[in-house]
């Protein structure tokens, strides 16, 4: 296996005292793309949120390591500065804060103008973040945000949901381009992608697939084979 970027062992996560994830183990190597399947409410988004450190999720057991360093006790921004970036499924609208303000604050205004056109976001600089964005615009912005941030580990929470077919390909291309481009430190990027529909598999090259049910990872393997099995038999045969 390639150098381990993300290492999760025995992870239990709860929200407001309610356990959601139990004994999750997951390893992602440098340059690898992993996809995570699972029915609604299985805990997929909770796993991404726990890696990112988002409230209200609390790690109650186990550990999360990034590049060997334990990060589950770090604040959100400290995790981000160590190289984790997340494309949200339903990000908040931030009235009054423009895309340009955001990129200037991150010190990446030059990237804004260079990369925006590739995601059909050239006219976005003056728009307020996620205010009045269509479903497709939200997804494209969330991917574009990762270009501005330049993380090493990319977390995508259902990047294709709410996007029309025409733009799924743009989102998929952008994810591929991000993956192919090393970060500014020259490190290969890795990704963990949640997909509910599996459409994104038509556009990206995934290395490993996982199935999460009831807060457990119940199966891992070749992603297309896993997805075909889910399409044919549903999640019933994969119960823990």
């Amino acid at each position, binding site marked *: 296996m390639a150098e381990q970027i993300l290492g999760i062992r025995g992870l239990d996560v709860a929200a407001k005292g309610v356990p959601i994830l139990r004994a999750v183990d997951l390893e992602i190597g440098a340059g690898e793309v992993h996809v995570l399947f699972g029915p609604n409410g299985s805990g997929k988004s909770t796993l991404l949120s726990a890696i990112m450190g988002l409230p209200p999720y609390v790690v109650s057991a186990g550990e999360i390591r990034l590049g060997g360093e334990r990060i589950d006790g770090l*604040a959100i921004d400290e995790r*981000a500065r160590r190289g984790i970036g997340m494309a949200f499924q339903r990000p908040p609208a931030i009235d009054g804060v423009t895309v340009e303000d955001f990129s200037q604050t*991150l010190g990446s205004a030059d990237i804004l103008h260079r990369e925006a056109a590739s995601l059909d976001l050239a006219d976005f600089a003056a728009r307020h973040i996620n205010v009045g964005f269509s479903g497709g615009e939200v997804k494209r912005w969330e991917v574009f*945000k990762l270009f501005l941030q330049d993380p090493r580990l990319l977390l995508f929470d259902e990047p294709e949901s709410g996007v029309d077919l025409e733009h799924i390909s743009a989102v998929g291309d952008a994810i591929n381009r991000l993956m192919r481009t090393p970060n500014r430190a020259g490190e290969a990027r890795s990704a963990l992608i949640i997909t509910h529909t599996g459409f994104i598999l038509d556009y990206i090259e995934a290395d490993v697939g996982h199935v999460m049910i009831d807060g457990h990872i119940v199966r891992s393997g070749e992603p297309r084979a896993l997805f075909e099995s889910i399409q044919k038999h549903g999640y019933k045969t994969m119960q823990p």
Partner: protein
Amino acid sequence: MLTEKSMPALSNEERNFLAPVGYEDDARRSGTCILVDQSVRYVHSEDPQVEIMPLKDALGLYSWVQDLMFGLISPDENEHVKLAAERTEDPVGHFVRVREGAKVRLPLQTFSVIGTPQGRQFIHDITVIEKGAEVEMISGSAVPESVRAGHHVSIGEAYIHEGAVCRSLTIEQWGVDMDIHSYNRTKVGAGARVSSNQVLVAPVKHHASNSVSFLGENAVANDHSVVFAPAGANRIMRSETHLNGKGARSESLTRMVTAGGSITNEARLVGEAADTYGFLGCDGLKMTDEGEILSVPALLARHSKSQLSHEASVGMISEEKMAYLMSSGMSEDLARDLIVEGFLNLKEQDLPSEVRSSVKAMIEAAKSGSM
């Protein structure tokens, strides 16, 4: 009468503490009037379309000015106004007149300064924008670094005549322990348009403002205020807009942020005539558990064809928004600053760039002193 020759030029120190509230040299302004304590420190205009002078001089020069003084506010309004009305000394304040039809190219500026620690200032300003004239006005208040405490009471009466256009920007930067009371009355004539931006972000112990506007037929008023209250600040704003003439329209947006201070905003729209339209937007953001915001928008329709509406909200900075911005690597402080600046909507304010940066600096300074 005070003449320009009898007034020494402004010192560098004076220019420096007035610059953050919008002061520019004479070459970039159509007129300037600066009041310091109980006297007119500086007055200047080279634009023949603009008259700007001490109110005392205007009362001597034009008999009609006495009809404008207390024309929009009763001398019995309250104890402060009564105190000002009954003063036996000469009135202190500016008189501004923009002549009929004038299209004034450069902004006109007026400032009030308390230059003496524990100074007392009673000011009465009269502004007349005549029929069809267009002007931009910048006004502000400031104190030198050495002055922290004092008391300022001001009365402002503005007459915006038929078809005139007046855009105004007001930036206040009083001393941290000051007590401020301001009373403004504006009469907007038929078809006239006024837009005002008000920036109240610097620390102040107590600031009570009371303003009333009267809009004539098809007159339009838009105002946008950003208000910030660091710990120890108490701001009370009361306003009334009367849509008196048929077709009058008004839109008022107030954005308030407390970092521990107290803000009260009571805004009332009164629809007095047919086909009038009015909107009040009053939003508040709390940065900490300390401090409070009371937002009271009120609508009073006296005519069946008056359409009035309001929106009001008060809440803490959203944890979700903070987490979202921090997940891109921004520190908690940077994320909070971005949200607050976005909420205050400084970009939408028509602020000169140098003023915009000084406003941001005022907010920064106020926050660091209060958090």
